[in-house]
């Protein structure tokens, strides 16, 4: 955990209600780690995964979807504005064991996978991604993922790729991998968990603090209660007890 003042470099709408926010002055954080952003007029910080990190410029990118008051207020962040951030939170993905990774993302859950993919690529891995979007207009990072490796796409309305969700792809395509890395809506993760148990998932939960103090984010796992913000947000999928 690092408390940092970052500066807004860019804050633009990249798809309907989907924004790219680039911040400078950020310490390195690992793929799967997250940050907690203080939004003016709001009390609790808002958590976001790193979508990308550029070590040369200390640039940290996040992609956020406007879903309520806090994210709506974030769209007002202006270039040059100083932002109060808790950085380097959570555990991040464990990249030490995989030989042949598979990335599986749904909706905004695709965000942390991009940074993860870049890091895996750097380590010499081949990148295969299965990405589910609501519709064509909501697709983001498509080109970027394609540059890194093979991409399978599904959309809820069939406007791009397979009509359906990532499970529909996984069940029909015969993709070779040893460990998957997934992030997406709870319903997708739950479905994944009954499909295959060798993978890591990044979870979400409303957060009081983001650094382990309040127990606001705890989930039940096969190894006891764990805090999404501290022991997570990345868990082995077979440990998570999905409700």
């Amino acid at each position, binding site marked *: 955990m690092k408390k940092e003042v970052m500066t807004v470099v860019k804050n633009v709408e990249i798809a309907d209600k989907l924004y790219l926010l680039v911040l400078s002055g950020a310490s390195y954080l690992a793929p799967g780690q997250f940050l907690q952003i203080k939004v003016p007029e709001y009390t609790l910080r808002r958590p976001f995964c790193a979508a990308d990190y550029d070590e040369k410029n200390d640039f940290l990118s996040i992609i956020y979807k406007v879903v309520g008051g806090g994210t709506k207020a974030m769209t007002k962040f202006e270039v040059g504005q100083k932002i109060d951030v808790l950085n380097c939170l959570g555990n991040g993905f464990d990249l030490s064991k995989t030989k042949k990774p598979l990335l599986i993302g749904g909706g905004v859950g695709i965000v942390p996978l991009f940074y993860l993919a870049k890091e895996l690529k750097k380590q010499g891995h081949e990148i295969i991604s299965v990405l589910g979007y609501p519709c064509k207009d909501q697709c983001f990072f498509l080109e970027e993922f394609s540059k890194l490796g093979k991409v399978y796409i599904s959309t809820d309305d069939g406007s791009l790729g397979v009509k359906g969700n990532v499970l529909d792809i996984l069940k029909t395509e015969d993709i070779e991998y040893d460990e998957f890395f997934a992030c997406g809506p709870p319903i997708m993760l739950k479905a994944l968990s009954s499909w295959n148990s060798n993978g890591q998932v990044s979870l979400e939960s409303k957060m009081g603090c983001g650094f382990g103090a*309040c127990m606001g984010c705890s989930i039940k796992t096969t190894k006891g209660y764990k805090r999404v913000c501290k022991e997570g947000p990345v868990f082995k999928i077979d440990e998570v007890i999905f409700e």
Partner: protein
Amino acid sequence: MKKDTQVKLFGKILDNPIIPASGTFGFGYGFADYYDINVLGSIALKGTTLNERYGNPLERVCDCPCGMLNAIGLQNPGIDVVLNEELPKLKKVYSKPVILNIGGHSFDEYIEVASRVGGNPQILCIELNISCPNVKEGGMQFGLDEHLASKLVGEIKKVSKKPVLVKLSPNVTDIVKMAKAVENAGADGISLINTLVGMRIDLNTAKPVISVKTAGYSGRGIFPVALRMVYQVYEAVNIPVVGMGGVSNAFEVIEMMLAGASAVMVGTENLLNPFASKEIIEELPLAMEELNIDSLSEIIGKSHRV
């Protein structure tokens, strides 16, 4: 001039009156990764029950413009793990005595927890939480009824080897009546306030945000209510009062002390800024300088004397 920030609580000298409030600081040692927590006057640990508890289903925290809601429901590993594992971990990074906050669902549970504490020297006092609004089967009920409260305090006093600080609920018509009842039952001190009962509704789903609907409201928005209650209770009782509720800076610490607080707990602010308690301790001498205060212990309850 050197500023004297020491205060006394149950005969022990605290270096300063700042104590992170129960539930907002875990079992303390987590914060040692961020700063040397030995600067803290003391620490109030997460509410502890007899057995391990998960608490309420998610979501159990929620944002408010001037604070937050929580309905954790007392997640904790149970008193034995706290005594045998958490306290030793804390001892490695914090050398002073701490406050053990206990919760419960029945007379028997409270009494059992209090008696297991024993004479552990790492413990300054127990804080009896009879005001948790987030536990269905008891908790706050004890804090809303003066007869239940005094009966419980009386029982706890019989088994406790440590001073008993009773934490009151603000969700009552007459806080002074509650305070007097627990004083008469033998409480050694009173801490207040716990959270106000509040609620938020998600505009997108129209459902309450918190799984159990209502929850405890804490943070800056409750400060004026907390201050009023500290003032009223100080006037009515002869035991020390520990004040809390929405404190976010050194000036508010001083305001609480003028109203009657012997020590001041900082809660929600630790969650918003992990360095809050430390920063408040650092600001204290500067605020004292600005307000011409030399010794904090001398201003306790001063607003009742001017």
